[in-house]
């Protein structure tokens, strides 16, 4: 009996060490540490119901943005235009809400979809690198936002405030995460995105519609920016020229903090997007408890970002990053 048992005991152990890479868990451990740290600093206020609601509201757009941006990053591309995408959709939704509140959300989504497709088409048809395209649309759309908002802010009818509801947001955010996880891991769409990131030419030669996947990625990301823009607008009660400012940097920082490889490919995970967003949200929220001067917060975010990259990026693989 003992002879039979021995190999059975050894086998799974070997497999575990084979498959588990400690670096995969650093973001998760980081999140726990950061929560514990601020929980102690804030003497328990961090995890109070009231503050958790606040964190949910603060991180809502970020989680949705990073999760949908994952479909682009998995392909080895980036979307710098997200901030302006939130801005333009919010302003369009606000104008619509003044006339016909019911149409505000559909308009936000459709405006996002259209500009997202434009992003994708510019990238695919004119062979302009994705970061140049989206950096340009970041500027163009910000200009457009300022123009159609008349340089100030567009207020929203009072009836819209019913959408600023934590319960609703929780359902939406969990729904988005669930659908994204399924699509990313168990459907052709997610697998094709990762294949493009692993090697666009090899994917193309295996029948992956590479251009379609690229356009899809930008369309998805921008449409979800429309969703963020809408909720942003109802929370603020208005849409302004600076709505969504620097959203794209927060998304990228969150992705990297979560351990998402920016070169894309098979090791991309939705988990990275969610954990990264939570780290960034808890950090921003917690710094307030720590009585850190607001003017210093941006700097601290930067330092945390740098340390996180240093800890999580596998230097052995650095050479294969495009």
């Amino acid at each position, binding site marked *: 009996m003992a002879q039979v048992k021995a190999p059975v005991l050894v086998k799974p152990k070997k497999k575990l060490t*084979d*498959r588990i890479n400690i670096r995969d868990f650093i973001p998760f451990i980081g999140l726990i540490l950061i929560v514990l740290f601020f929980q102690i600093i804030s003497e328990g206020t961090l995890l109070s119901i009231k503050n958790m609601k606040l964190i949910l509201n603060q991180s809502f757009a970020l989680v949705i943005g990073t999760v949908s941006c994952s479909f682009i990053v998995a392909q080895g591309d980036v979307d710098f235009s997200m901030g302006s995408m939130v801005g333009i959709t919010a302003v369009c939704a606000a104008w619509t809400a003044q006339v016909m509140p019911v149409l505000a959300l559909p308009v936000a989504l459709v405006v996002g979809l259209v500009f997202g497709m434009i992003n994708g088409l510019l990238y695919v048809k004119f062979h302009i690198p994705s970061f140049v395209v989206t950096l340009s649309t970041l500027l163009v759309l910000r200009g457009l936002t300022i123009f159609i908002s008349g340089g100030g802010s567009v207020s929203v009818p009072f009836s819209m405030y019913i959408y600023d509801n934590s319960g609703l947001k929780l359902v939406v955010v969990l729904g988005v995460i669930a659908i994204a996880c399924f699509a990313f891991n*168990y*459907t*052709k769409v997610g*697998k094709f995105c*990762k*294949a493009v990131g*692993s*090697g666009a*030419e*090899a*994917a*193309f*030669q*295996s*029948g*992956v*519609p590479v251009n379609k996947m690229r356009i899809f990625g930008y369309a998805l990301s921008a449409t979800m920016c429309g969703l963020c823009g809408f909720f942003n607008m109802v929370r603020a009660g208005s849409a302004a020229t600076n709505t969504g400012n620097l959203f794209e940097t927060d998304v990228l920082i969150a992705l990297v903090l979560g351990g998402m490889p920016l070169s894309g*490919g*098979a*090791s991309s995970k939705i988990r990275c997007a969610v954990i990264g967003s939570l780290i960034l949200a808890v950090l921003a929220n917690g710094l307030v408890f720590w009585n850190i001067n607001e003017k210093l917060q941006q700097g601290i975010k930067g330092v945390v970002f740098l340390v996180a990259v240093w800890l999580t990026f596998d230097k052995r693989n650095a050479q*294969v990053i495009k």
Partner: protein
Amino acid sequence: MEDKAVLSVSNITKNFGIVKALNQVSIDFRSGEIHGLIGENGSGKSTMASVITGVYKAEEGTMTLNGKPYQPESVLDAARQGICMIVQEMGTIDGISVAANVFAGKENLFAHMGIVRKKEMIRAAQNILDEIGASDIRAENPIDGESFENRKIVEIARAMYEEVKVMIVDETTTALSQKGREILYRLMNRLRDEGKTIIFISHDLDELTQLCDSVTILRDGNFVRDLKKEEITPDTMRKLMVGRDVQDDYYRTDQQRALTDQVVLEVEHVSSSLLKDISLNLKKGEILGIGGLTDCGMHELGKVIFGIQQPKKGNVYAGEKRIRIRNPRTAIRQKIGYVSKNRDQESIMKLSNIRDNICLPSYDKIKKGCYVSPKAEEGLAGKESGKLSIKMSSLDQLCIQLSGGNKQKVALAKWLGNDSDLLILDCPTRGIDVGVKAAIYQLMNQYKQSGKSILMISEELQELIGMSDRILILKDGALSGTFDRSPDLTENDLIQYMI
């Protein structure tokens, strides 16, 4: 002619993984000679040039230059010691003038008080161009507007101003028209008369005969023979280049031709940048071999057939319904699979695991609704990798960790798993060790026997003769010969149509 060697390499060995690219090769290059270096594809001649110019380091062996030990650290180091190379690919710098290209790195010749006198430089460059017979290239023009051929000539003009001791010309002539060749020949002759050494790598046996003072033949990384001026004839060179026995048991032993007359693939009058009006068809249960020199257009033909590259003229049709192939997706729908010559970049995703690579074209086959279950993936990848006995730790292993042969097996498993009826294999056994090679040949044979078809593009003549039912030879982008399977077919027969 002096008899002392300027550059001698002795017992050079260079391995690429399991492949011995050079095995204990020794050659003496004398001053005042044009020394041809020839051999089939993969015989090691380009590797030798790379070792001499410091691109690669040899694992064993020594080199001496003018009697002193010579160990180049880099291409730059080799150039500093007087060894330079004109290559097949582009070697000019964009964005500056022709004159600036000719004198790249030597601007000091025209510097007065730190300012380069452009007019003087342009005049000097024009003089050189006129001298070598390329007066139609204007030295003041930007290089970007010049044709590929003219750029090559500018590169040659630049080489004239180098303080060269040894100049290596690597298959440059394939990129040149007659005019460019004449200029190159004239320059080579002139350098020889000045007592320099030229190492000339070429496939063109006529030009070798005409130019060379001596020729060294390599085969499979081994030194075969040195030929003196009077011994150099196309025939002797051809014999020595090929001269090996075909191992019979390795390849197919039957003399069977195509199993049926049913056409599964038709290429109609396809022309592209390299191809000239190619028409061919492939039958069910046939292995069609396509051979030629590397740059004859056969690799492009494979890409055109699979829809990766669009032909300028002509069409490719597949299947009974004669569906036109426009892109890889339409080809895959017609149950065609393609394995590229450029395995690591195009056939597999190196940084993905074996499972994802094998399943990639087959998600439509294994999904239920839109759900692709991990179990179904595991099943397909497990079955196919098992059939081909891919050596791996698990299906989660990344392809980058596999050997060349196993990577190729993954690329094949991908298409077998997708139930392809027609495989386009571009150099299916390139850089693969003998064991896996035999396995792939066996697989190809079984595939044919089950009534499926293979279009095999290969640079290895033995492989073509050993495996194909029919062989088409391409030369300069056009079909130059067709051979049916026959035990009497020799490599010499094929080479005549290639060169």
